[in-house]
């Protein structure tokens, strides 16, 4: 990495590495905190507070506050320290600065589960997938048969959680409080779903799919999730039944032995541990369909208001979004730094991205970044450029993308809905020079 990069540090690390500076940063220079409270605080932080006399009276450090906002990180063999969203169900987000690889490696792939992760199977090649419903010839094919019978394709495909960006909503919406990191752009190998559907013979009038996977609900009652899409998306050339990721077996937590990849649409459609896909005349009614689930208002509703989602529509192509991957939020750079080479990725559901702009003065002026074309449709795009910094001090890098239809990331999350889909506001990375 050519640029100075500083990972986000916990308060414990900050104190361990440089207690003097940490104290100056954290507590400033005001009144003292004394006695038992101070001792308790030091114990809880796992570090002494050397400059406690500067600690403002009555201030509770964020790391100790109830419902602490300090992120916890996943510790798992073969996985990077992803931001923990929850253990049951297991969900973890990739910090933006770990999304720098053009092809997302397995260790930096975000984790999204609705239920329990199934146990690995002994013979992945014998895993069976059933295609039935409104088809002339129902099929039951093993992974080995799929690979043998249909053209095998490899594509770089962006796949993101339908709720990516949810933490941008105010008031808070229900669900994992994702930043922008529930996104991936791996290289997937599999067969086109449309080739399999054509082999089965989709009947006239069939308009929807219903997907089924092997993961069970946390309540132990029924499937974890079962979503469906319009047949047009199922017939898209980039909608694949995949059995390899980045040239290797799909990791178990990411859906081995076989999963759907439905790029550009909510990730829940990319059913993991795929066992069955039915073709339907009417919209699927599985868990995760209808109501406010993966659905957004047509007529905007009052933020925070109660709504059963009856008038909402299913979320389809995801909105335009960008990440800055060269520098972590909270990066500190040497005094005198006056320019910075920055870069990241950007994508826009079924569309592509036309422009990326960056501002270092809180949106007063914007500078166009260099933007690469995607290597294939539904792959994310690299953006990069050099920014100037007029002085030492605190800056925010704001970055925003505009899609091929001219739609730009908004300044604040738009179209609030109870379960929080579609938030894609302009992002901000804080940097401190000196």
């Amino acid at each position, binding site marked *: 990495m050519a640029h100075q990069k500083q990972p*986000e540090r916990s*308060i414990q690390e900050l104190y361990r590495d440089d207690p003097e500076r940490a104290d100056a*940063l*954290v507590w400033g220079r005001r009144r003292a905190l004394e006695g038992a409270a101070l001792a308790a605080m030091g114990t809880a932080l796992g570090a002494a507070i050397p400059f406690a006399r500067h600690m403002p009276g009555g201030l509770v*450090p*964020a*790391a100790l506050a*109830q*419902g602490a*906002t*300090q992120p916890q990180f996943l510790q*798992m*063999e*073969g*996985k990077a320290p992803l931001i923990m*969203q*929850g*253990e*049951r*169900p*297991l969900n973890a987000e990739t910090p933006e600065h770990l999304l720098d690889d053009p092809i997302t490696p397995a260790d930096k792939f975000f984790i999204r*589960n609705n239920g*329990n*992760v*199934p*146990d*690995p199977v002994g013979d992945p090649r014998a895993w069976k997938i059933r295609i039935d419903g409104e088809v002339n010839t129902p099929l039951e094919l093993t992974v080995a048969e799929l690979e043998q019978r249909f053209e095998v394709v490899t594509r770089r495909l962006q796949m993101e959680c339908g709720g990516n960006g949810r*933490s*941008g909503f105010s*008031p*808070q919406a*229900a669900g*994992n*409080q994702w*930043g922008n990191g529930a996104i991936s752009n791996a290289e997937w190998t599999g067969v086109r779903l449309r080739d399999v559907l054509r082999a089965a013979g989709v009947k006239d009038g069939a308009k929807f799919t219903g997907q089924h996977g092997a993961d069970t*609900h*946390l*309540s132990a*009652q*029924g499937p974890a999730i079962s979503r469906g899409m319009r047949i047009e998306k199922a017939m898209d050339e980039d909608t694949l039944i995949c059995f390899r990721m980045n040239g*290797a*077996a799909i*990791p*178990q*937590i990411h859906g*081995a032995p076989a999963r759907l990849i439905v790029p550009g649409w909510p990730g829940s459609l990319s059913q993991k541990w795929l066992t069955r896909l039915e073709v339907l005349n009417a919209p699927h009614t599985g*868990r995760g369909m209808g*109501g*406010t*689930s993966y659905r957004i208002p047509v007529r905007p509703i009052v933020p*925070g208001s*109660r709504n059963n989602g009856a008038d909402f529509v299913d979320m389809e192509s995801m909105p335009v979004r960008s990440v800055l991957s060269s520098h972590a*939020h*909270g990066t*500190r750079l040497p005094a005198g730094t006056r320019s910075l080479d920055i870069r990241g990725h950007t994508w826009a559901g079924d569309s592509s991205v036309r422009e990326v702009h960056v501002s270092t003065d809180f949106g007063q002026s914007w500078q166009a970044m260099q933007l690469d074309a995607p290597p294939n449709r539904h792959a994310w795009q690299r953006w990069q450029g050099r920014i100037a910094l007029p002085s030492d001090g*605190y800056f925010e890098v704001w970055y925003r993308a505009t899609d091929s239809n001219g739609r730009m990331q908004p300044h604040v999350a738009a179209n609030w809905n*109870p379960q929080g889909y579609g938030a894609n506001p302009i992002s*901000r990375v*804080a940097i*401190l020079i000196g």
Partner: protein
Amino acid sequence: MRLLPYALVAALLFASATIARTPDLARRQAEAAAALADQQEEETVLAEGEGRSEVFGYCTACHNTALIRRSAFTRERWDELMDWMSEKHEMNPLEGEFRDTIVDYLARHYGPRARGPRGGAPFLN
């Protein structure tokens, strides 16, 4: 020249080790995921107050407390979520006094909070 066979052998050994490792890693990651999900929590991870035991007992039957601790909803939104969980996620419907106990606790301790983007200013925490 003499190095070539060694390089080939080394490459083959490496490749077979990689192939052998993959299923093991898959199993270990699945086990790690299960271990995380099965991790026992203490009730005290939630804010102290009337109704905590009820909330802890009832909610963690399905999911862990991370889902509660990350949340910041008004009483009305918490109440709405109780219906959503019974309609969509197999929760036994909550009614009467017990429902009030649960929803009151959640609203009191996990109500709306003011926060900056990404949890606040990075150079202060």
